[in-house]
């Protein structure tokens, strides 16, 4: 649709509704029309409960292929809960219950015939605290491919993954050394290499830089830019500047009292990152991104 006539003078959203339809057109800030990529995750009115306690209510949003989507918001607003619902990591919590639908490429993630292991084969995750296996650097990256039967060209695959995670030059001479000897930032990049070694469709990052110093954080952010497009990335972050730097789209979660006894985490606003930080529609988003709260 790049041949569209006169670009509209102001930013204009003609996206009918996030979460519906595979393709939507967007008037971007530079005035060109673009076709939004296809929807990978379509969350429809998702609510999450841990036992009797509701952690999340009514989240509807669409996450699109190849983009980086950031989930921001104050502590306890359910952004990590939402992230972990996208690859069924919450299933291991005994009292976990979900309502609504999460569609992944149109398939209901929580349908009865869905295999959790298959879900995670396609939707990888990197955690807040680096959690390398107590094995060598090489074996950390080679572990999942080996166990998934991707043994052909394993050494190549490991090198590509480590290059992809911008770690190769630092570790190529000590692949046999224990991963536990790496610095925190290197360990986290190793975890990213481990996740991309099996070439998943989606990478979920749960505050991947929160345990790292600013230099290691910058390295992770740079890495995310290089991974963008290759993978669909969803990142939870406490750090608003980080969201502003890396994300195409940003979802602001917060606690809202919806007539319930206790406030419950929910999605307040979801838009282009520039809009969320430049001119959010919701006053709660404005207060949060301007640092007046949270």
């Amino acid at each position, binding site marked *: 649709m790049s041949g569209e006539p006169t670009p509209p003078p102001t930013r204009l959203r003609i996206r009918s509704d996030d979460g519906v339809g595979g393709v939507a057109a967007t008037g971007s800030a530079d005035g060109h029309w673009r076709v939004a990529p296809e929807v990978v995750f379509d969350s429809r009115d998702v609510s999450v409960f841990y036992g009797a306690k509701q952690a999340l209510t009514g989240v509807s949003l669409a996450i699109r292929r190849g983009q980086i989507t950031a989930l921001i918001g104050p502590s306890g607003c359910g952004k990590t809960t939402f992230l972990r619902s996208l*690859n069924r*990591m919450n299933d*291991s919590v*005994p009292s976990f219950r979900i309502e609504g639908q999460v569609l992944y490429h149109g398939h209901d993630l929580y349908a009865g015939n869905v295999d959790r*292991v*298959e*879900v*995670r*084969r*396609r939707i*990888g*995750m*990197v*955690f807040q*605290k680096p*959690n*390398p*296996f*107590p*094995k060598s650097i090489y074996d950390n990256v080679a*572990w*999942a491919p080996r*166990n*998934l039967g991707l043994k052909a060209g394993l050494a190549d695959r490991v090198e590509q993954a480590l290059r992809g995670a911008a770690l190769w030059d630092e570790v190529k001479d000590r692949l046999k050394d224990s991963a*536990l000897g790496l610095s925190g930032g290197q360990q986290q990049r190793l*975890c990213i290499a*481990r*996740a991309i070694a*099996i070439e*998943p469709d989606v990478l979920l990052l749960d505050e991947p830089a929160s345990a790292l110093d600013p230099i290691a954080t910058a390295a992770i952010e740079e890495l995310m830019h290089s991974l963008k497009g290759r993978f669909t990335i969803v990142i939870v972050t406490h750090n608003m500047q980080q969201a502003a730097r890396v994300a195409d789209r940003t979802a602001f979660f917060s606690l809202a009292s919806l007539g319930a006894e206790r406030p419950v985490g929910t999605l307040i606003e979801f838009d282009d990152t520039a809009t969320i930080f430049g001119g959010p529609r919701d006053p709660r988003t404005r207060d949060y991104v301007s640092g007046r709260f949270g």
Partner: protein
Amino acid sequence: MSDQAGFDPTAPLTASGNLPRRRALSRGAELAATAAAVLAVGVLAVVVYTVVARGAKAIDWSFLVEGAPAGIGPELVGTAIIVAIATLIAMPVGVLIALYLSEYAGGRATQLVKLTMDVMNGLPSIIIGLFIFGLLVNHRQQSGIAASVALAIIMVPPIARGSQEVLALVPGAQREAADALGVSRWRSVLTVVLPSAVGGIVTATVLSVARAAGETAPLIFATSVFDPTRYSFNPLEALPNVPVRVFTLSEEANPEGFTEAWGLSLLLISFILFASLGARALLARSRRKMESA
């Protein structure tokens, strides 16, 4: 100044009031506790000293390799065979029980299985011997295998509990990392969880071997009618073994037999001591490795 304080804050800081009495009581309790601990170490020391003093002179090369009456070679070999088979049975079962507890079971099942293991651990070995006698020996014949099964029943609970304790030390973050990579649970257990815990599992096994090697009661039922003069390697027959030989020798009115019994006891106690100490050193090493992870 207030009378309620009960003391003069400006007085010298020496004991006042009933403090001397309280201090004496406290000191007495400490002494009693220390004495009990010293006694425990002392008992072990006396046992080891007695066994070494009386058994050392019995031990020489022919004692180790010849059959009765000069030596106890057949018993050493027999015990090794019996305990080896028992370990082959008990280790997989114990480790699988530990894996069930740490990786698969829910809260209530965990409690039930743990309780079962603790009860089994406290079961008198003579009852296990009687059970095996009824199951495998009566109407058939005594055999090394029957003894191995009895010892395996004794070994499973400590292996299971010990392994489960080290499996619990494997960080949950590692399981989460493995889960998030789309690898099935059993592969994760086999290649991530078990290798981290292997040191502790080996330790638990060695400790239970040390315990089983000296068990006597089940062997009296299962493998006590043997010919101590010749080597026997067939576990389908009664095998000569150390505990039963110690028992029969000490029952005889024969001073040389006494010396032999002491010599055998020395071998047994050295094996148990070295196995226990080695196992503990191994465990400490694997704990350190895990905690640095």
